[in-house]
């Protein structure tokens, strides 16, 4: 009983607790790669604390969307964070009610469309206050999101075919035991997923999370009208989203070292270590991409996202030919 409560709590708070750390680490890595010292890795927590203790200004032209969207978006990331496998592949359970497994949001299609719902509210909020920049951000975000969605779904399909299930938790259990021959289609699918990850999380070469130039922004442009607590929620939700994507990437495409049982917190030590190493590797890759290349012209972004889709298709075809 206590362990399952403990586990539930762990699963719910893990993503919001550690996601700012990931942002901090990625910024630190980028700084070092660019020859700067950089702020320490806990800076995003301080930023959040600062924003939460500030007053906010909401445009008088804004409707309920502006007020409401941060809660919706943050809640979606909480929900996904609670169900996506981090270091364990066990469905969290309401204590005492084993029939109520929190598994409904574990299906990869549901995950993809919960992200789409987030984007939808974000884009609405961007346009809501009526500023020119917000409109730009929203229109660009919708272009990117519409194209990235195909890549996202097709990059998860091969894993689903191989495992014979659409549910992330079951998928990981199946994938770990697959023969090495299936590694190749999974690797191709990982490339497709990586591009979708970069696009969905407003990273290079699609968007520049570090820019102050309103005219070039995508994600940040939609947040320009936000301030104070709601901005903190939006920023935090963005960090959560990145962590969820990273968890998906490392657990589905590199499904080793995930725990399938939970007895005590101590038993999670090794899985946590393995998860950290894998995530750090992925964060490093993102930091490298952001330090070594220029951002794409916006009209080359569709080419990139199309590449993601095509890679996903190839992975699907390879998988099907393997399994038949």
């Amino acid at each position, binding site marked *: 009983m206590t362990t399952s409560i403990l586990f539930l709590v762990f699963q719910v708070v893990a993503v919001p607790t550690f996601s700012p750390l990931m942002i901090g680490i990625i910024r630190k890595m980028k700084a070092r790669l660019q*020859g700067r010292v950089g702020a320490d890795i806990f800076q995003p927590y301080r930023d959040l604390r600062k924003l939460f203790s500030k007053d906010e200004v909401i445009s008088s032209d804004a409707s309920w969307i502006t007020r409401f969207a941060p809660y919706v978006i943050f809640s979606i990331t909480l929900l996904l964070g609670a169900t996506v496998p981090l270091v364990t592949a066990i469905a969290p359970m309401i204590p005492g009610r084993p029939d109520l497994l929190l598994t409904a949001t574990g299906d990869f299609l549901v995950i993809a469309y919960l992200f789409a719902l987030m984007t939808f509210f974000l884009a609405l909020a961007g346009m809501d206050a009526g500023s020119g920049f917000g409109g730009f951000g929203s229109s660009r975000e919708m272009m990117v999101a519409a194209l990235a969605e195909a890549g996202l779904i097709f990059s998860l399909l091969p894993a689903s075919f191989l495992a014979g299930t659409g549910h992330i938790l079951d998928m990981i259990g199946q994938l770990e035991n697959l023969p090495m021959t299936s590694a190749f289609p999974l690797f191709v699918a990982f490339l497709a997923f990586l591009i979708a990850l970069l696009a969905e999380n407003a990273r290079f070469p699609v968007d520049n999370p570090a820019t102050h130039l309103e005219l070039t922004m995508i994600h940040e442009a939609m947040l320009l009208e936000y301030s104070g607590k709601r901005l903190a929620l939006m920023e935090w939700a963005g960090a959560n989203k990145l962590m969820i994507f990273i968890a998906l990437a490392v657990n589905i495409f590199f499904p080793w070292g995930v725990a399938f049982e939970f007895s005590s917190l101590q038993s999670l030590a090794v899985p946590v270590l393995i998860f950290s190493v894998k995530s750090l590797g992925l964060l490093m890759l993102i930091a490298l991409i952001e330090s070594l290349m*220029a951002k*794409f012209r*916006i009209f080359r972004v569709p080419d990139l996202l199309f590449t993601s889709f095509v890679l996903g298709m190839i992975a699907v075809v390879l998988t099907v030919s393997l399994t038949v």
Partner: protein
Amino acid sequence: MIDPKNLLQRFGLGITESKVEDNRILFEINASELSSVVRTLKKNHALPLKTVTGSDERAMGRNFRIYYVFGIPKENVFLIPFISVSAENPSFPSLTPEDQEFSMYEREILTFFGLMPIGHPAPERITLHSENFPKDIHPLRKEFRWNTPIVEPKEKEWPTFKKYEGEGVYEIPVGPVHAGIIEPGHFRFSVLGEEILRLEPRLGYVHKGTEKLFEALPSERQVALAERISGDSSFHHALAYCQAIESLASTEIPKRSLYLRMIMAELERLANHYNDLAFIMLDTGLAFGGSQGTRLRERVLQWHERLTGSRFLRGVLAPGGLLKDVPKHELDALRIDLIDLENDFIEVMEAVSESLSLLNRLQNTGRLERSIGEDHGIVGIGARAIGLERDARIDFPYAAYDSVHFSVPTEADGDVYARYKVREREIHQSFKIIHQSIDRAISSNGPVSIPIGNLAPNAHAVGLVEGWRGDIVYFVLTDASGLIMRVKVRDPSFLNWQVFPYLVTSDMVPDFPLINKSLNLSYTGNDL
């Protein structure tokens, strides 16, 4: 000594009366002859127009005057026709309908003197915008005191912008307050999706009354004012001012100070070119190039401080030379460090030259047609990037630029990449110049300044230098007792802002900041 008659005849001008002041020939023409004289000089003989400005000389028993300053390249001679405009009929013929380049100058005269250019297609003020300033003030008229309190008008008149209409076309207002630490300027975009159909910049938000202040400040504080017109060009602005004053005083300054001035001027160019390359790369998101470029700039700024005590080379120039000598061991140390600084730069540029993602952003972005640049009198980096070999260091050699070897790099394409390449290649030329100047400075002993004599009365001097953006022109006038009564500053940005809308048309909105950075124009230098 110049023979004015022969010279004017060479240009087909039958002017009988003219006044020669050192290398400047002034002659009065009638307003009715203006168009033909200007056409002869500018069109037929392709003389570059250096500045056009007014001056209120009513206190000297004259009228308003409008001077048209032309330079003769390679000969270092200036032809200055001028017209008189009376206060009773405060208007003069506009040359804009036949030549774009005059447009802003004429609007500037309208703004500050209240003289109307007749025939100008859009005679609007360039600063002192009517939402903040009353309409009837003309600050450069002598009766306007520099400390007159300005009363904001009750009835504000807001600007109107040209409208593009059609399905899917919309307007985005940007600025004058921006998200980063950038100077204020308003940009009105008409866009179709992401494509820019039209850009209308509205500047003039940083009007500081600079030219009026020159008339109010005592002469010993005027260098400091020149240094603060455009902070990144402190040295070059002060240099142009000092050269104008030295020419008014007919003072030959010591050789050693000339070489030291060249070293400092080229160091300022280096620092800014490094900075621009860094920010061009940073705006494409190439953070590596951004941090390396700013690191290189920092190395140069530290040299500035070591040589002069100021990171921006302020407080070192004065009419008559320099306020501070640089000892030999520092010059030797600089020479050694320069070699390292150049190799460091080469290494960084090699590392980024293989970045296809960078090339892809720079090439074909922000392209300027050569003819549009020529029509608007583009100067500096922008001009050299469309293949116009314009450089005051070659065309009107000052200091001792005629005694050192260097070349003027040009590129043909006129896009962001061409401006980026021009900067990269100019950096190598600057190193060449500094090395030669160090050699000469070390071998020429003696003082670095001499006291300047009294300024010639009723005189007109031109101070012309090639700042890192382009040429900076100072036109300085003295009154009957040899006191400075008018200083006209022409920053390169004043001309280059005019071509800016053409650069971004049919480019995409997200590329605008990059194109903006590729020219990196000064707002304060434009708004004065």
